[in-house]
């Protein structure tokens, strides 16, 4: 069993993997050459000029100073190249494609909870379609965790105080590891799971099975449960601003600055409404800190998002299933 299962290289299962591996291989060759070169030089010289009776004294010789300049300038240039390459990859990973499929993740000691916009929830397993960018929006309920997909060559820390999002596009179907990579207490090494990459049709089938209604519609119910609708009505008569059409727009605040209504803005508006007060409204919205769990928060977010795209409240989810397939 030991020998059979002895990988020296992780499988490449995302679009990103080969790019990262390319840089890795380049670095191995570059630094390998340099390191081996230095090693051999040291040993070579140490043997050649080893102390012998006729070599008790070093020769009075100084290598030319131009060497010094060379080995300052050349590495610097190489390093700048590495910087550009590494940054290019990083930037690429930071920019989530617009057409990515939304998935929500919560880290919690010691499990991963995933929610699909259509309402499916799963723990420690994540089903995603192949060949389609997936965006994971995530937060932690307690300490810092880190969602790590080694075969996709990506990971990101999950924070307790704000949303962050990462993305990947799987290129192979199959089961791949998920690890928690940021130490989070007793069962940190047990906070593991699997990502199941499926054909889009399979994925649609899977989505169709057992769900409690889409996240947005569950969010809508919560919207009533928390009595948000008493102030946020569908027309301009409420005490709070109309939330339809809000998501992704710029909001003008009472101090005349504008902010983009993104995930973290919505989250903050609910947890700490007075931090950014919308122009023309009184700061009367109560805080929901401590009342709304991370799961519910994500549903509320999904709801606010859903009514952001089409002005009517979403009753039917706009599932972000694979293109052209019917659920």
């Amino acid at each position, binding site marked *: 069993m030991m020998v059979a299962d002895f990988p020296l290289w992780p499988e490449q299962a995302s679009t990103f993997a080969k790019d990262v591996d390319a840089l890795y291989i380049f670095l191995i060759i570059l630094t390998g050459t340099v390191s081996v070169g230095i090693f051999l030089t040291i040993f070579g010289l140490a043997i050649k000029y080893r102390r012998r009776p006729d070599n008790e004294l070093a020769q009075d010789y100084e290598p030319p100073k131009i060497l010094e300049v060379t080995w300052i300038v050349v590495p610097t240039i190489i390093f700048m190249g590495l910087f550009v390459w590494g940054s290019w990859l990083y930037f690429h990973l930071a920019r989530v494609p617009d057409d990515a499929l939304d998935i929500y993740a919560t880290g919690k000691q010691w499990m991963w909870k995933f929610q699909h916009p259509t309402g499916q929830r799963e723990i420690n397993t994540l089903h995603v379609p192949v060949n389609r960018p997936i965006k994971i929006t995530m937060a932690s309920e307690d300490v810092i965790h880190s969602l790590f997909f080694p075969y996709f060559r990506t990971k990101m820390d999950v924070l307790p105080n704000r949303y962050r999002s990462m993305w990947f596009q799987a290129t192979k179907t199959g089961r791949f590891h998920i690890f928690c990579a940021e130490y989070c207490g007793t069962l940190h090494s047990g906070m593991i799971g699997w990502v199941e990459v499926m054909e889009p049709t399979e994925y649609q089938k899977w989505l169709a099975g057992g769900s409690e209604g889409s996240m947005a519609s569950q969010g809508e119910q919560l919207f009533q449960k928390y009595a948000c609708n008493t102030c946020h009505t569908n027309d301009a008569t409420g005490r709070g601003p109309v939330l339809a059409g809000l998501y992704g727009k710029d909001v003008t605040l009472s*101090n005349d600055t504008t902010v983009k209504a993104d995930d973290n803005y919505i989250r903050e508006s609910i947890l*700490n409404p007075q931090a950014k007060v919308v122009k023309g409204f009184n700061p009367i919205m*109560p805080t929901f800190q401590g009342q709304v769990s991370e799961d519910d928060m994500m549903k509320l977010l999904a709801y606010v998002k859903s009514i952001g795209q089409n002005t009517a409240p979403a009753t039917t989810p706009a599932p972000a299933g694979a293109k052209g397939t019917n659920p």
Partner: protein
Amino acid sequence: MSDMALGNEHHHHHPFLQHHFEDLGQQHEASTLGMWMFLCTEILFFGGVLCAYWVYRVMYPEAWAVGAHLQQTGWGATNTIVLIVSSLTMALAVRAAQLGKRGQQLGFLFATLIFGTAFLVVKGIEYHRHWEEGLFPGSHFHWHEHPELAQKVQLFMCFYWGMTGLHALHMIIGAGLLLWIMWRAYKNHFGPEYYAPVEVMGLYWHFVDIVWIFLFPFLYLIHEVHHG
């Protein structure tokens, strides 16, 4: 033992010259440089918490303004003046030591101690009031005027207590050192040849004063951010 490497004759063996120094000049330079190095670390010590303070101040300007308005500026201003006076008397004590005037020196050191203590008393009064008003962070923090800002104001109060507490701790240590210096001054240890301990004490005391010069506007005087 031979000190003759530098071969200067006029230096008799001063009782406070330590064995490993060549002469009092070297010893003096070493002590003051040592204190400066220590103050470097102090700058970064206070600087660390100050950096955190500014990060949150930029994030939560309203809460910071509210927090500053919870302070009584009168007390803060009084204390600033008290501390500046103590710095003056400290500087004059060093001067008296340089001139070898023992009486003056003792007087100014004593004045410094008195003003330092006055500062701590005023700070104590403020602390007491904050405690009574439930402005100490933690489970018994009560402050509800703007419920939505309460958490961030509490965060501000963490910094208030943390920074002024650290500063007060430095004052207490300074007061202890002053007593020791006063005792040595009383024993007539200092004069134009040897006054490094007084000088070093002064550097420390002035540094603590500088910290407060910044803390005062940062914790008491934040102008309200106006909403349009």
